[in-house]
């Protein structure tokens, strides 16, 4: 449990202090913290998952300075995750109180789910942010670049956690 809390704080800290301020190019705004929501354990009730998504998004909003955008996006992400996971056979993982990650559901399933969720999240956030001056080329390019970066980081974190018994 303590390790889990430490892990959550570490990921949020990384997001707020490092990934929000990369600044190589304005096309790179990766939202790595959504790994927390993608890998949420499956036995938690849907309402709690929704509430958790809202709170995590609100924290991100506070530090990035966008009113409501990330909170809204996080809840859509949780909603989309319900749909994607509903189509997968996860009775065993639910019974064993496992989180949703590479080790519990296998690489290909996890990669497909994570990729669609990450792409959706970035597209939604960048679109919502630029309402009033929508520049689709910019939005799509930023989405692709940031999603790629986020997926690489998620992959690395998942592979690293294998050594430590795959608790997350």
């Amino acid at each position, binding site marked *: 449990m303590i390790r889990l809390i430490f892990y959550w704080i570490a990921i949020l800290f990384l997001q*707020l*202090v490092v990934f929000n301020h990369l*600044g190589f190019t*304005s*096309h*790179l*705004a990766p939202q790595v913290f959504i790994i927390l929501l993608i890998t949420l354990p499956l036995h938690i*009730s*849907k*309402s709690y*998952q*929704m*509430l958790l998504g*809202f709170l995590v998004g609100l924290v991100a*909003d*506070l*530090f*990035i*300075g*966008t*009113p*409501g*955008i990330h*909170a*809204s996006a996080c*809840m859509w992400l*949780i*909603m989309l995750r*319900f749909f994607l996971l509903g189509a997968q056979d996860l009775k065993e993982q639910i019974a064993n109180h496992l989180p949703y990650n590479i080790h519990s559901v296998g690489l290909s399933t996890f990669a497909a789910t994570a990729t669609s969720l990450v792409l959706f999240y970035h597209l939604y956030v960048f679109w*919502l*942010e*630029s*309402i*009033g*001056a*929508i*520049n689709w080329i*910019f939005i799509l390019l*930023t989405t692709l670049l940031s999603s790629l970066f986020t997926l690489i980081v998620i992959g690395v974190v998942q592979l690293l956690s294998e050594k430590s018994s795959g608790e997350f």
Partner: protein
Amino acid sequence: MQRLIAFIEHNMHILLFIVLQGMCGVLLFSLNPYQQASFTHSAAFMTDKSNELSSTVTGYFNLQEQNNLLQAQVANQFKNDARSSLYFMNDTITLRDTSRRKLYDVVPAEVVFNTISKASNVFIINKGAKNGIQKNMGVISSQGLAGIVIQSNANYSSVMSLLHINMNVIPTINNFEYYTGLKWDNGHPQTLKITGLNKLEEIKVGDKVYTGKSSLLFPEGILIGEISQLETSQSSQYFTTHVKTATNFRNLDYVYVIINKDIDQLLPLLPDND
């Protein structure tokens, strides 16, 4: 009744989703740019301390460079201006004309929070009302124009940067003022665009763009940028002019707030207070 309760329990997450999304919508759309800025402001206040800590460390790395840029700028801008002379005061450089009456105060400040990747970019500086900074004051960097103050509290102010979709500056090119806005279109973070310049105007790539007389927020002749591209189309008689900003917003560290001392007297004289 029991079935209703069971239904609600079963679909609690959807109810929660709708209610919370509603809250997000209220947050997102009921806040106008000004209130959005104050949200950013109060939110960023929480991170100010940590940002300031890292600023105190990283601030030294390019201090020398920034100082040289500032000196060059001050020299260029005011060297040939016979009316004004510089007085260096405590923390404030004050420009005076020969009648010894203050025209502009220039307050140096450090940027503690900055974004370039959003559609509405706002940065926060570590000087506020205590240093005389109020809403609607011009902000320049050592390279050129940077933004306009939209809110200030005792110690900090938030500044709408040039990279904000609501920003609109009247440009002066080759000593002619063009009353068509210089705007950012949420594209490249160093390119602004002017859409209404007639093809008959004598402008070319490389021409410098300055602030003009029509703004009370900035002194005349502050560099905004340089024309980098003149986009033409057969069907239009206007250029779409791309302007490369003089200020590099990616490494904006030090800025100067310009306080027009006569603004209180000048504003009521305008037909509509805009």
